[in-house]
Every structure is written in C-alpha cells, then in structure tokens.
C-alpha cells in the first residue's frame, strides 16, 4: 500500500468528528430552545470553511501566498447574482447559477493567473492583494452591471423538491451549506491524493526539482489558482443566495481575504481537517463567542453601544492579531498541522539518525547493526 493511501486513513478521522458535531448542533437547538442557538451562525463557519479550503489548494498545497481570495468571493457573489436575478436575461435559477458560479470563478482565476504566476513569493502576494482592491473598485463603479453600492437584489432562494427556502428557518440552509462543505472536503481529499495533488506539493517543495520530474510548473500553478478561485466563488455564490442580495462591494475587502489566510494558518497549512478547525475557531470567535458575549454583557448592563470599547465584538481584530502572534510563537505549524509542515518546523525532533558507516566497506548502515552492502556486523554507535 502506498504512503498516500495510508496517510489518508489516519487523516480522515477529524473530518468525521466535525461532521458529527455539525449534525448535532441543529438537534441541540431544537431540543434546548433556550440554550446557545448557534445553528444560524454556523452557516458563516461553513462559508468560510469553503473559502479556506479554496485558499488551501493555492497556499497550503501549492505554496503560493494568496492575499486576494475576497476578490474571487466577490466575483462569485456577482456571478451568482447576474446569472440568477430577475433583472438580467439569464435567469438560471438557484441551482443553475450555483453550478455556473465556480466556472466563472475559475475563468477569473485563469485570467489573473496567466500573466502573473511567473512571479514568485512576495511578488505574487502583492499582485493578489492589488487584485482584491481592483475588483472591489470595479464592482462599485461599473454601475450599469453591478448596481454599484446598492447591490443586486433580490436573488432567488433555493428550492429543493418543491420546498422553498425562507430566511426565517435556518435549518434547510444549514444542511445545504453543510452538504456543500462535505462535497468540497471530498474534492480536496481527492485532489490531495491524486497525481495533481502530488504535482501541487512538488511545486511547493521545490520548483526546479518539480520541473526535473517533467512537471510544467506554470501550468500546475495555474490549475491550483483556478481551482482555488472556483471554490472561493462557490462560497461567494452561496453567500449571495443566503443574503438574498450581493450586498455592497466593500463587504468583500481585504479583511475577508486576511481572515481566510488566518483560517488556513491557524488551522494548519496544507491540512484539510486543519482548515475546517481553523474556520471553526476563527469564525467561531468572530460570530459566535464575541456576539454572544456582547449580548450577555448588554443584558447585564455592562456594555452599551455608546461605549465602543465595552463591546467585545469590537475587539475582534486585536484578538485575531494576538491569536496569530501566539500561534507563530508556540505552534507555527497550526492547530492540526499537516505531517510535512510539522516535520519541517520541528526538525529538531525526532533527531536525525547518525550517519554510521560500515567499517568494512564504508556503506551507510543507518540504525541497522548489519551492513546491507557487505553483511559485516556494525558495532552499536556510542
């Protein structure tokens, strides 16, 4: 059995834990009406999990720092809106538009990637950062198409076997989003264990060596970029349908991009389960813990909207910043690291075996006590 298949079995477990938790939450909300009620906000976690998994293909697998995923999310939002809204001629409906949204995203990814992916490291990061700003400005200013800051609305809600989704009940949305997260995780797992995934990893590890293996590194980076953009657009399309509107272009700004980067870093770069945990932790802090805490403090009269500092949800960027600094100091490989990243960041443990040479023929014997080359017995090293 190949190592790839082995690693797959041991990595799948956390995914199932997450799935079990995700299935329990709506049940809890139902049987304990006064308790937490976090199911509604969980949808944000699912959306950011998809965004994080898209970024993970680009940054985690292929090693390209991408600081503009919000732009592809925005492209997804507007693609979904234009393809589904009544005011445009396409009117694909929810499912048609949702299926086409990642295609539009992938094309946008190719369009940005083709001229820029020859750049390396920081230079590429700067281009993606700039792209994120440009997309916002374009969406704001091409008013004839995007309706500017007003946004496009209303957008159709999904309809499953005649059942119409509504804003008031979150459960159908919850399971729709969860189902798509499961599909995206399955897609990521398949990519990871495929030839393509190996090509991604080899490009991350060493581009020159990857070329020597017969891999067209520019093409592979382009594919990674397009796949990442497709998933980010998918997240955008879902987001738009859930809002029933595109919202304002400024919603898809650098803060969204950096939040996705934080999710991948905190969770564990290159590890799918890690990204899920990262989304849970980061968005959990943002839209569950801080929101609930603020509500609680307001009920107790300890905080009010008049005093900005007293509202815990205004502290979120400081908390994110602190979390990142602490992560970098104590667990730079992330909460659920990929085996490889961990190996690199903690190369002091386990210690490298001494290079013991056979006294007879000079062949390295590693930890074995018998030389594989000439059969001589090798004394145990001191």
């Amino acid at each position, binding site marked *: 059995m190949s190592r790839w298949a082995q690693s797959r079995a041991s990595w799948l477990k956390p995914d199932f834990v997450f799935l079990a938790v995700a299935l329990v939450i709506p049940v809890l909300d139902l049987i304990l009406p006064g308790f937490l009620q976090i199911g509604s906000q969980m949808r944000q976690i699912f959306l950011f999990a998809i965004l994080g998994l898209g970024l993970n293909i680009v940054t985690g697998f292929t090693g390209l720092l991408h600081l503009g995923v919000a732009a592809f999310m925005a492209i997804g939002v507007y693609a979904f809106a234009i393809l589904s809204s009544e005011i445009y001629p396409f009117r694909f409906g929810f499912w048609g538009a949702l299926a086409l949204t990642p295609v539009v995203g992938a094309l946008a990814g190719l369009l940005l990637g083709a001229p820029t992916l020859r750049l390396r490291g920081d230079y590429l990061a700067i281009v993606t950062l700039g792209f994120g700003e440009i997309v916002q400005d374009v969406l704001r200013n091409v008013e004839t198409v995007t309706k500017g800051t007003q946004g496009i609305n209303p957008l159709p809600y999904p309809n499953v076997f005649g059942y119409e989704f509504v804003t008031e009940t979150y459960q159908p949305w919850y399971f729709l989003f969860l189902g798509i997260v499961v599909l995206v995780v399955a897609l990521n797992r398949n990519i990871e264990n495929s030839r393509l995934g190996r090509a991604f990893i080899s490009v991350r590890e*060493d581009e020159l*060596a990857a*070329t*020597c293996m017969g891999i*067209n590194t520019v093409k592979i980076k382009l594919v990674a970029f397009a796949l990442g953009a497709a998933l980010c657009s998918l997240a955008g399309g879902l987001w738009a349908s859930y809002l029933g509107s595109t919202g304002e272009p400024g919603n898809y700004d650098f803060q969204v991009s950096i939040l996705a980067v934080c999710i991948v870093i905190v969770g564990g770069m290159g590890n799918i389960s890690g990204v899920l945990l990262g989304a849970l932790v980061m968005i959990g802090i943002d839209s569950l813990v801080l929101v609930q805490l603020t509500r609680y403090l307001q009920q107790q009269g300890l905080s009010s909207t008049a005093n900005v500092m007293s509202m815990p949800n205004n502290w979120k960027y400081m908390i994110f910043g602190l979390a990142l600094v602490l992560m970098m100091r104590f667990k730079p490989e992330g909460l659920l690291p990929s085996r490889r990243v961990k190996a690199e960041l903690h190369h002091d443990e386990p210690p*490298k075996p001494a290079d013991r040479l056979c006294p007879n023929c000079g062949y*390295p014997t590693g930890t074995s006590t018998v030389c*594989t080359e000439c059969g001589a017995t090798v004394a145990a090293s001191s």
Partner: protein
Amino acid sequence: MLQIDRIHAGYGPIEVLKDVSLEVHEGEIVTLIGSNGAGKTTTLMCVSGLNRVRSGRIVFDGHDLQDVSADRIVHRGLAQVPEGRKIFPRLSVRENLEMGAFIRNDRDGIEEDMGRAFALFPVLKQRQTQLGGTLSGGEQQMLAIARALMSRPKMLLMDEPSMGIAPLLVVKIFDAVRELNREGMTVLLVEQNACLALKLAHRGYVLETGEIVLSDAGSALLTHPRVREAYLGEV
C-alpha cells in the same frame, strides 16, 4: 544520442558558453570537467531546457530540443540529477521516488523500478519512510539519482554528484553509475572531481571559461599533461 552543436549561452550581458560542441553516443559515459565558472552547469542546463541557448543546436535522439520546454524534455527521455541534489525534503524517500515516476502511469512498472532503485542503493530501502530532508548528503545524492531513474530515461544528466559528500560515499555513487552504464544507460556527467570522473568516463571534455579546450578518451585525458597540471594537482 546527444549532439551539442556550437552553442552560445549566458546570463544577461555575460556570455558563459562560447561555441561549445560535444557529443554523447548511446551507451557512453561522457564527462565534462572544468573549474568553477567554466560553464559546466550552464551547458547541462541548456541540455535539460532550464536555460535557453542563444545560438547553436542541441539534438537529442534525433530531435532538436530548441523549442522544447524543460518539463517536456523529461518526457523525451532525458532525466537530470540537478546540482545540489534538489530532493523534496518534506516528502519521504518513497514519495520522492514516486515523484520521479510522475510522467508514467504504469503502476507495475513503477513498482518494479522502485525495486531496482532499492537494489542499486539498498540504504534507500531502509530509509524509505524517512523524510528526504533527514538523509545525509550522500544518501540524498543516491535518492536524487534513483529518482531521476524512475522516469525510465534514455539518458541521465548528472551535475556534480560528488559535491559535498563523504569520499567513501562518492566512490559508492560512482560505482552505481558504472553499474547503470553497464546495463545500458547513457550518462553525461559534469564534475569538478576530474580524477574520479575521468576514471569512470569513456570520454571526456575539458571546459575552460566557456570553451572546450581538450577532448579525448577518459584514460588519455588522465595522463594529459595539461589536465594533470590544471585539475589533478601535479606540477
């Protein structure tokens, strides 16, 4: 099998190769020796497509490599063992070898070649689950050679396999190259260790500041006064 015909190459305004021609026949080990900065690696990079020639022709197996990209050249059957080994440090030894077979799809054939690689370098078999980056320099070089062989090339390009490696292991590696050649592999070897390289090679070329100044059989070059003086440390 490989003809390099009057190539010129360089970086920016600097011309590194001035009219270099050499030839490797099927089944031969040919070595290109020379001091630092002579253009040995540049020559090899031109062959493997990682560097473009400004003029001249490189023909491999009857095909001009002029417009073939580096990754396609590997598909044509020309595998490179790059300078400084360039193994994948965070992939295991086995995964490194699997990457070497990236262009192939025949599972059984890959598994068979994996066995041959382990037979050639038994230490790799012991270390197959270990991460590439934790191997010693010599073992990494063995891995780099084995990885290049995994693409089933017609010809192997080797760039300074002795660099930074314990002398005992260098001997092992050169023995392995001799063994490969006996089985029919064609090799173009770039080396600074002229003595070892000329003993191994059927023929050799001496490169000095971008020009071929000597070429002869390996044994003949070993005794050539100019080579002895310049590269073998004799006055």
